């Protein structure tokens, strides 16, 4: 087939909602977009372990500690699925990780904010995972098969995490005045960064159009953000807390909540590497990787020895 025919075939599959699979022909730009997006997503899971990992040793009850450890571990698992998905596109895990460490690849900027109190574990679960799910539910229907299937698994766990996060805040909201203050403070700090997670406004988003056509994305940034706001604005009432946006109010015509202006300066600043924890996060990941080098080498050396031994004993037995 000619390139042109291949592309037609590819596009008709997309139109018919047939998943693209690793061995299928796909446009270079589609592959590139996927590698960028999936690896960014994988990195977000891995870097995302750090802010929550920060409270594992200080969790205030054994039950909460167990839930938190399991949650952070799930994120490592998600990272694995997603690195595997990038591998189906011909990019090795090492390459992918290297791009993270050099700053070539990005991860979700939300993880460049510090976790300052225990309530942040709740706010991250509720708001950050909540925002992530909006995206991820959409991605369960993304056009690339391995990515869509990874997302189905991930989504199940994430909605669980969101409920756990909400539950942390719910306990705090029913607690002492200090706990209630801690709860409100965390919501105040995480609200706006969560809204930024959906990316720039549609009018300023560079990659969106093509991704929509290829059905990698299936809803726009602004649509997802609005859905999220509508959901959270209701849930926050259950907590008896408020969202830190004086302009937030129900618009009965639009059937949506109106909301205030997002500080896009802050958003771009953090994307550019100037967030409170960008340096710290990458340094922690690099440190783990560099200090693990001898372990990976030893494992490889041992595996090679074993292979040689098995081969030679197979020969001897033959």
């Amino acid at each position, binding site marked *: 087939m000619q390139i042109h025919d291949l592309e037609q075939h590819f596009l008709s599959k997309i139109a018919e909602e047939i998943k693209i699979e690793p061995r299928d022909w796909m446009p270079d730009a589609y592959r590139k977009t996927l590698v960028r997006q999936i690896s960014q997503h994988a990195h977000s899971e891995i870097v995302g372990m750090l802010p929550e*990992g920060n409270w594992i*040793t200080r969790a205030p009850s*054994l039950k909460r*500690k167990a839930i938190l*450890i399991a949650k952070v571990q799930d994120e490592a698992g998600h990272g694995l699925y997603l690195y595997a998905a990038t591998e189906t596109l011909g990019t090795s895990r090492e390459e992918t990780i290297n791009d993270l460490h050099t700053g070539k690849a990005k991860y979700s900027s939300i993880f460049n904010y510090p976790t300052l109190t225990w309530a942040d574990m709740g706010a991250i679960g509720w708001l950050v995972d909540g925002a992530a799910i909006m995206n991820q539910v959409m991605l369960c229907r993304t056009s690339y098969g391995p990515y869509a299937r990874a997302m189905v698994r991930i989504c199940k766990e994430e909605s669980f995490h969101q409920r756990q996060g909400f539950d942390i805040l719910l306990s*705090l909201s029913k607690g002492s005045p200090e706990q209630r203050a801690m709860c409100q403070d965390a919501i105040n700090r995480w609200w706006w960064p969560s809204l930024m997670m959906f990316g720039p406004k549609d009018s300023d988003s560079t990659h969106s159009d093509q991704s929509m056509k290829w059905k990698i994305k299936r809803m726009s940034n602004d649509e997802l953000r609005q859905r999220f706001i509508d959901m959270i604005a209701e849930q926050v009432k259950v907590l008896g807390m408020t969202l830190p946006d004086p302009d937030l109010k129900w618009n009965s015509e639009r059937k949506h909540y109106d909301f205030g202006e997002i500080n896009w300066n802050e958003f771009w600043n953090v994307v550019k590497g100037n967030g409170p924890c960008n340096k710290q996060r990458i340094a922690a990941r690099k440190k783990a990787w560099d200090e693990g080098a001898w372990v990976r*080498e030893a494992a490889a050396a041992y595996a090679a020895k074993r292979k040689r031994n098995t081969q030679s004993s197979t020969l001897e037995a033959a």
Partner: protein
Amino acid sequence: MNNQLFNYLLHLADNTLILSHRNSEWCGHGPVLEQDIAITNISLDLLGQARNFYQYAAMLTGNNATEDSLAYLRTEREFKNLLLVEQPNGDWAATILRQFFFSTYQELLYKQLIQCNDAQVAAIAEKGLKEVTYHVRWSSEWVIRLGDGTEESRDRMMVAADELWRFTGEMFIPADYEKEAGISGFGVNVESMQQDWLKKVEAIFEEATLPMPGAAGYMQRGGKEGTHTEHLGYILAAMQYLQRTYPGCEW
């Protein structure tokens, strides 16, 4: 309430809680993603065991005790864990070896606890044994892999062995509550397990081409009776901080 049973349960609980704590420090910082997950998994298993023991101890002691009051509101001198499990993570070799020493011990222990005359202890041990069997396999494989891997990994394993060996003897020197556990039958007198433990360690060290640490080395002790190394205080300062700062709260 049987005070020695209570102490015994705290000892079993503290061991698993503190090692869980140490392992959880790796979460997000492991040398390979798969192993980050594995060590975190072990941390979770141990935490689960700790909770079972604390819950049972809390039930026995009454006084509104809970798993959390036992974990978060006792001070350093009241903790009864082995010195081994509170040692710092060091590098991956030290973490692996600490786990191997402890899991091998724990497997022998739980196998006997299953037959003890306290149904609750036996049930906890039975559930835990499945997990511990996996911990032994996983850590054994890593001891072998690192011992017989590269020159560097081998050196690091020997450094780790030199560092940790002196904390292994304590496992088999019974505290009063362990003696009582053996006599009354609600648990195990650990003395009897030492030979089996040594045999297993020797077998794995041999496969790992590692020399056995000097068997005659002097052994540190005290953890079981609440005399710890200087490391435990820092663990508790972080672990208990919220409970201490906001007393009496629900989380």
